[in-house]
């Protein structure tokens, strides 16, 4: 059994879960000491977890791949999963790299290399879906690298700048 701490919209649950593999579609687990029976039907091929039945209650789900939120019939829910058995905490991956959050066209660059920026400060403007979208600084620091230029088309995830 693997023990996880799962937080949904601020409510914390402790989940004990047996080892799984892709073929598993029925499993019993312990949530806050109570046994829970789960069915995970596979429908239409190897999709991400798309719906489950928990103790006879069906849920259709969209779960983001970073496991930070999920959408259910009841709306969007904030998620956090922590492995209670992990001896080493996962490194905080909040580095200062600024990547293109969507593909689009850079219409304006509002900072220069070497500038000091505050977390949340607009760095550049990216046009997509007929809207101008500000890309903001993920942290406070100095722009050590700036590869974005006005007029440039960028793909999803392209490195735009780095802040240290």
């Amino acid at each position: 059994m693997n023990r996880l701490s799962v937080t949904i919209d601020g409510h914390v649950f402790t989940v004990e879960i047996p080892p799984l593999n892709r073929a598993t579609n029925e499993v019993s687990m312990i949530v806050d000491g109570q046994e829970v029976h789960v069915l995970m039907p596979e429908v239409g091929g190897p999709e991400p977890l798309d719906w489950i039945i928990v103790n006879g209650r069906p849920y259709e789900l969209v779960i983001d791949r970073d496991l930070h939120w999920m959408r259910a019939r009841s709306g969007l829910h904030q998620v956090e999963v922590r492995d209670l058995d992990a001896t080493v905490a996962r490194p905080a991956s909040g580095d200062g790299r600024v990547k293109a959050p969507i593909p689009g066209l850079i219409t304006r660059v509002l900072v220069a290399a070497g500038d000091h920026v505050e977390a949340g400060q607009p760095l550049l403007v990216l046009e997509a879906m007929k809207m101008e979208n500000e890309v903001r600084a993920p942290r406070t620091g100095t722009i050590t690298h700036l590869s974005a230029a006005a007029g440039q088309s960028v793909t999803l995830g392209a490195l735009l700048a780095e802040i240290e």
Partner: protein
Amino acid sequence: MFQKILIANRGEIAVRVIRTCRDMGIRTVALYDDSDLGSLHVRLADECVRLASGALYRDVATIVQIARDCGADAVHPGYGFLSEHAEFAHACEDAGITFIGPDSATLAAVRNKIGTLENVSAAGFAVPRHSARPYGESETAALMDAAETLGYPLVIKSYSGGRSHGTRLVREPEHLAPLAQHAHSAALTAFGDDRLYIEEAFLPGRYVEVQVLGDRHGALVHLGERDGSIQHNHRKIIEESPAPGLSDAQRDELCGQAVAIARLLGCHSVCTVEFVLDDQGRFVFTEVKARIQVEHPVTEMRTGIDLVREQIRLAAGEPLGRTQDDIILKGCAIQARINAEDPWNHYLPSPGRLRRFRFPGGPNVRVDTYAYGGCDIPVRYDPLLAKIVAWDVDRVACLGRLRRAIADFAISGVQTNLPLIQRILDDPDFAAGTYDSEFTRRQLLNTLASSGNLRDLAVAAALAYARRSADGNGALPERASSGWHRESRRLPQ
């Protein structure tokens, strides 16, 4: 009747128009660019033509030439793009092709928004105080002076083009300059004209509009009003008819004014007369939209009238064929706009490939969209992915039905504002119909999940975590790979 109609648009409205053309036995020609070749409007049309020029759906000369080449006898412009473009209408007229909408002279007149306000005011109707002329990007000082004279709050609007792209609400003087800069730029992007004008804002107010229908022979009726006060960034999110909370006397006055103004401005075809209802209960005329609106299905559901079919019929010169007494407004209809965007991350657009896309259904639920499972949501165009409309005998039943339909709409692959719409529909003020244009400034709470549900969702999250670990190397994918900033994805309480 027309034999072949070129649809000079894309997205859900192009699909909408193609469907009615086919219902009527009229052949259709769709346009596409390389990024929306996969959209439904291309699949459903009889013919399709690729747009290659930089201006794409705004390229007047190319589109008129395509219409000639394919032998279309009419052009439907949809909304946005060239739908209120007098020069385009004129070029069609010159080519002997019917522009499905008002004639170019009427379009030119209502495009002059300041002149229109003055006409309507002269006829004795209330209009907002406004700047006497529009201002280009280089005229910041003059714009500041005009704002000083007008006072705050005020609204910046684009002088050309009706959709929300250039509109900004300015609550305080210090916000004028940066907001105007954005608005100039957005108006230029959207309409090719950076000019803006300013207008008195009514806060709190309600945005109400009246659908009118007129033929080329002078007959004119209204099809009731719609309320579009629930907006974000001046884009409507929810529209409904009837506007909640109006008395019968108010409704009669509103619709009567709309018909009189439409007649004054020479509107025919399918037009909308827009008003603000201020906190004194006064209707203030703001604009005329001389084309089909995004929210037209709300009116279709209440009246049983296919507005696109009427528009085509009227453009072909057919008489209206109905009087005001023939129009029966039945029950309540509410529409929600589903956008491919992330309301929890600065409304960042969310293009990409749709995976699951399963419609809600049942009686009196309608979905309009250009998308389908497996298609790509293009990055170039606006984020409107689908519209859901529900109808029922009264507002309480209609709201119950729309809530259910929203919860049943299964979309994966791109982010959408569905969860935001759920929160709006569940808000007590929305449910009571007592909202106004300040509604979306408030915090919207998630009230749908019980604690038992949250426990079940925790189980789902644990399983998703365990399955990922079982699949790969035990680590979660690197957050940067998704391209989102974790900091900005915090959910509002």
